[in-house]
């Protein structure tokens, strides 16, 4: 039962996370160049190609950082805000890179890169804590399942949010020349829908897994704890989004806005609820 924590190793992990941030910043620059060039020349892809190599490398470096943090703490690396953030960023990047193989989702590279860069920046500058043991309330295999699937859902929702933004920009006529190079509105709507759909299913799973765990830990499967409330709100918002997509006059821009509202709730649930709301899910570690 005696856990050995390794703070020096955690500092090494921090180095890797910081290096990954540097690489992400480079990738972000390359993707921005790409967008700037794309405006004049639709066949341009040099910056983009290098950008994706750098993004891949950054994901690998971040992966090593996350793994070392887990080894340093002797458990899964997702038990406080700092760890949620680095593992979450890794998951978003992984979901995105794998999605590239399945669908043409290159267009939201800037969004995904920028979003993970900001998340990591918040992690190292605001959320960092030394490695600690798990409090008894978190010592459960549900920590592995429930939290991992929640983070995975965020990955899907994030990619979808990128497409919502692109969709709304194009529909509003912003950066007209550049947006012409982006896929058709219909195509972007469809991709966002697919990602939100998968996110909704995994989010439903996380909600159920959380309820099972809550029954084991707190004697009730649902008690309207602040985190439970927001998990529910997010679920209902995305359920609303799915209905909107099937309702005449509500798909298109309105649905895209709804998807963005849903994603804002996801971010709110992570940042504001974790840090400022009172409740049983007080695991920020800060």
């Amino acid at each position, binding site marked *: *039962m*005696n*856990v*050995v*924590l390794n*703070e020096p190793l955690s500092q090494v992990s921090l180095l890797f996370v910081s290096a990954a941030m540097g690489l992400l910043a480079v990738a972000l620059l390359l993707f921005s160049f790409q967008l700037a060039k794309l405006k004049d020349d639709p066949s341009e892809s040099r910056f983009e190609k290098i950008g994706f190599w750098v993004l891949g490398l950054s994901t690998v470096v971040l992966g090593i950082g996350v793994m070392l943090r887990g080894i340093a703490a002797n458990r899964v690396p997702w038990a406080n805000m700092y760890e949620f953030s680095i593992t979450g960023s890794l998951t978003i990047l992984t979901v995105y890179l794998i999605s590239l193989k399945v669908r043409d989702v290159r267009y939201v590279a800037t969004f995904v890169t920028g979003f993970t860069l900001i998340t990591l920046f918040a992690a190292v500058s605001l959320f960092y804590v*030394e*490695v*600690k*043991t798990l*409090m*008894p*309330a978190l*010592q*459960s295999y549900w920590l592995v399942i429930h939290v991992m699937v929640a983070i995975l859902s965020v990955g899907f929702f994030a990619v979808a949010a990128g497409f919502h933004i692109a969709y709304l920009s194009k529909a509003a006529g912003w950066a007209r020349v550049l947006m012409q190079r982006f896929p058709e509105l*219909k195509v972007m709507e*469809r991709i966002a*829908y697919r990602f939100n*759909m998968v996110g*909704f*299913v995994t989010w*439903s*799973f996380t909600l*159920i897994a959380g*309820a*099972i*765990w809550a*029954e*084991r*830990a*707190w*004697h*009730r*499967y*649902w*008690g*309207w*704890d602040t985190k439970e*409330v*927001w998990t*529910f*709100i997010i679920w*209902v*918002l995305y*359920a*609303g989004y*799915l*209905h*909107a997509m*099937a*309702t005449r*006059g*509500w798909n298109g821009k309105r649905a895209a806005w*709804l998807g963005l509202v849903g994603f804002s*709730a996801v971010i709110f649930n992570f940042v504001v*609820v974790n840090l400022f*709301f*009172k*409740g*049983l899910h007080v695991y920020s570690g800060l």
Partner: protein
Amino acid sequence: MTSSFRSSLSFWPRWFWRQLTSMRTALFLLLMLALAAIPGSLYPQRSADPNGVRLFFDERAELAAVLDALQLFDVYTSVWFSAIYILLFASLIGCVLPRMRVHLNALRRGPVQTPENLKRMSAYFAETGKLDLEKVRKVLKANGFRAEVQGDSVSAEKGYAKETGNLVFHSALLAVLVSVGVGGGLSFTGQRVLVEGDTFVNNLASYDSFSPGPFFNEGELTPFSLKLDNFDVIYDLRNRANIGQPIDFVATATLDDGNVAAQQEFRVNNPLAAPGANIYLTGNGFAPVITVTDGTGVVAYSGPVVYLPQDSNMTSLGVIKVPDALPEQIGMISFFYPTVAELESGAYTSIYPDPIDPLLTLNVYTGDLGLDSGIPRNVYALDTTHLEVVASRNGPNPPIELRPGETAELPGGIGSISFDGVLRYASVDIAWNPGGFWVLIFAAIALVSIVFSLSIRRRRVWVRVRDEKIEYAALARGDDEHLEAVLAEIKDEIEKEARV
């Protein structure tokens, strides 16, 4: 005249029902539900945080009264929140029931009548030649379609499981709601503090607090007894940044269901399964064992006293009331420091949560404790306003300080007190909710069926041969970017297999 009167009478309810069951209304109600849930996370809720509500009333009484009138401390049982979800579920039933009938009919009847004008369908190809329609049917069947030869055409459809999944999902949600309601009604939760050595017997009188659901009856409590034999708390003493962090709480208890008595362990996240209830470890603290001898030399109190932890290093506050002491009743407010350290101010603090160097300090009062008037008093608080101070930091005598095994005379010959040892206590929740199992089952069904509903595509395909002309057409429910490609593939296969 009569008929127009009757139709106007039935117009509004019908109009209302049509509105309620429309998708737009469902969407609106969903968004309202999300919005209405927010205040429950902004204000403390009686169900989740009753103490927070009490504090809110203490701090801002006027605002609290207004919020309370709006049921903002009971959001999830409030009239307005309930109204939204009841309307939502009414809308759901109104939407799902007719669709069920339509879907059952579709399942029974098979593919629809081939439409006259196939050119209008979202995917369409035309060829010349002739096909063996029976072979066409077989090709479609091999592709997972339900297919039927209808005169000069074949009508085929697949993806019925999409609508089945959709309908099962919504029905399962309804079943979840019913299970939550019924289960909550029959459920109960009780709390009890058990000092090492204490025995809990499962009847209403043994609970410190008990909150039953509205349909609960006492007969639901299955008789059993639970003796807390031992309670260990393990803290980290090894990793520097982590010192004093709890690593494990382990309660060892003997559970006796009337037939067999067996010793079992339970811990956080690992409740003990007792007959008809689960026992959850929810809190811990120290119970110093104290003996008070009064001024006449008689033992007026002896036993463990439950102290409430005040900080993460388990500085604990306890109140000892000795109403049987003579000549005067004795009351004490006491602090227990598991590992004591002295601050610069001279006050004590605890620097580690395990009893490595324990110290007990006591402020002593005498006078009428107010226990004989029959008014229930908080056992964890002592009202000292009408008591005479015997010993305290600013009193006539310094506070009593005791280490385990020590005895001290109380000033003024009112008696003596000894600190015999330290036991731990566990706060346990004893809870049962028969609905939980069903909620889980229906939630799992909902999860599986939503995957079907979202991932399967509903497609109709028609092939017609008329006057040396072959027409292929397909239609999908909803947006389907692959429809044309799928039809092209089927067409190629049919051309290969069924050409005459």
